[in-house]
């Protein structure tokens, strides 16, 4: 049984079709990279899958059932990193991660959060408020928010953005480990090295020349 199935997905703005009858199937432990020029529909596809945007046509199935982000089970299974992440200005880095771990009833929230902080390199920033983080550190915090919680599917929109060269290499290794753990990954990327290291399949969107 496929983890995620997208069938005939279309998204149009007026007469302009950003996505036109797109199909894809993602198995557990598989990674699909979405590539294409700016405006080719990568983020739109991820937003439609995640329920943040409404497709004009088509369906999205998770475990062969309609994907509905209003279902608590879907929220258990799917971790998303899109462009809509926001943080509480008055809660520290570690408190954001504690909140997510508690909200998902992680067994050892403190231990899990501490190890994730170390993994993403934010241990020294644990007590900082979000406003004092650099853009790269905010991105690492966003990635950490995916790791402190259970997940079977990752939906990631350019996860490598704002990371330094070392961080991009670390991210590729992290996503490869997620795949090995059986997590399905659907991600959009402009970074050839990340696509090459992680993706089992590349879906090119739009008609413009592409990097992959």
């Amino acid at each position, binding site marked *: 049984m496929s983890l995620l199935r997208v069938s005939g997905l279309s998204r149009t703005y*007026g007469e302009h079709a950003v996505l036109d009858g797109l199909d894809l199937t993602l198995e557990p432990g598989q990674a699909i990279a979405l590539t294409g020029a700016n405006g080719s529909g990568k983020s739109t596809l991820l937003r439609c899958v995640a329920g943040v945007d409404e497709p004009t046509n088509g369906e999205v199935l998770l475990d062969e059932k309609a994907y509905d982000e*209003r279902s608590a*089970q879907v929220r258990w299974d799917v971790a998303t990193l899109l462009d*809509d992440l926001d*943080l*509480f200005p*008055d809660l520290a880095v570690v408190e954001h991660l504690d*909140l997510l771990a508690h909200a998902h009833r992680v067994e050892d929230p403190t231990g899990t959060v501490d190890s994730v902080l170390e993994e993403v390199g934010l241990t020294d920033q644990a007590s900082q408020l979000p406003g004092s983080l650099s853009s790269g550190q905010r991105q690492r915090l966003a990635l950490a928010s995916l790791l402190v919680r259970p997940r079977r599917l990752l939906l990631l929109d350019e996860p490598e953005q704002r990371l330094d060269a070392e961080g991009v290499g670390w991210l590729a290794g992290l996503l490869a480990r997620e795949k090995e753990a059986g997590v399905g990954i659907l991600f959009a990327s402009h970074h050839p090295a990340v696509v090459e290291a992680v993706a089992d399949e590349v879906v090119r969107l739009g008609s413009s020349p592409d990097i992959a």
Partner: protein
Amino acid sequence: MSNEAPTPAEIRGLIRSWRRGRATAPWGEMLYQAYLGLLTVLVYGSGLVSAVVNAGQAVAACTGQTCVGTRTAGPVLVVLIWLALGAAVLRLLGPLMASPATSAMVLSTPVDRGRWLRRQYWAMLVLAAVTAAALAALAAVTAGWPLSTVGALALAAAALASMTYAAGAVAQSRTRSVWRMIGPITALAALAALALVAAGITSGFAPPAGERWWLAPAATAPLAGTVAALGHRRLGELRRRDLTRGHGLANGLSGALAGLDTALAYDVVLQHTSGQRAVVRPRRPRGPKGPLALVTADVIRLGRAPLRVLVLAAAVVPAYALEEAGAGALTVPVMVVIGFWAAVPFGAGLRVLSRSSGLVRLLGARSWQLRLGALVVPTALLVAYGLGCLWALPHPLLAPAVGLGALAAWTRWLSAPPPDYASVMVSTPMGAMPVTLFTNAARGFDIAGLVSIPTLFAPDATGATISLALSAITLAVLVARR
């Protein structure tokens, strides 16, 4: 790991425990602020009570048939207009909202969404009911209704307001829902009531008395309870995107209003509504060139939102209601202000040209020429609006005076520059603030008052001519300034 999500109370407790002890205001400061708050409530509260008592006495002095009829209808009109405005605002904001951080950090988790939203839902429902009841009671007491029917109206208003809020919540998750009609229905009800007053149908009515008026709350309360229960049940059906949509708007609006910058609040709403629409069918007609190309742009805008013209046309109805109530020359300032506000949706062109110089530079004409171009369509609309009030005014020349006065107030409001923080500052309990910040709040109304004063003293050709001259001078100054 348990597969049962924590309750909203657990998550709220967690967040509260982190926030505890982070307050930066000392106790002394908090007590001082509480004292100031209490004092403000007492001063304004006593003022309000005194105003209501005085107004009630003044209204009671008028015993003519028209006066009594309008007094009878007044409180019902106030409630209906309040409901229509409330429904429009609720539709714009949500009515249920979640901050982007709550959306990302709480609503993305398996925590029960319906239970998380319950507190906000019921708090707002009660607030809507209490506000409407207070307003209805104030209006009815001022109008000299007997106390027994004041209570009936207040309860009915509370029920209708909570039903309006609950219907908004039910419709929030559905693009096509019959519940979305609550906005148009309340607007039409308010307009119909105004039209009844304007047509003189209420002139024979006497203030309601007797127990039969308690049928109104008795009929509306069960309905409100049913819709409220339906809204409660559907809270879990709301999507994250439904909840975050209004929060950005509310944040932008509160920022703009904190700076008393109402024109900036208009920018925020315009940005929000345009963002919601996302796509339009582009039209590329052959129109005039140069600054007059802005006329074509305004005509295109009119074609995209013809309902706005209908709203402006409907805005003349209060003039006839005021005439029926014997308002006389007072009709002019009221209609100038109503026209100014009803024309606000036509201000996108002038506003964008006024708030920054970037587009003015790009368009390559002098700024006064561009402002004139952006004024052509609104001038035509507001002059037509003024003429629509013709038969309700004491003198025919007052009709163009109303239209041009509304245009002058509208132009003054829309062409407001942002507050200048480099200008003279005054000391306030909230810190140093530029003087221009305070004048911003009165912008538009100051001109509405200025152009109306001559017509109050002389509601004839002389007053109208002076008013027209003042409007023309104001417009010339606003258009010509650099």
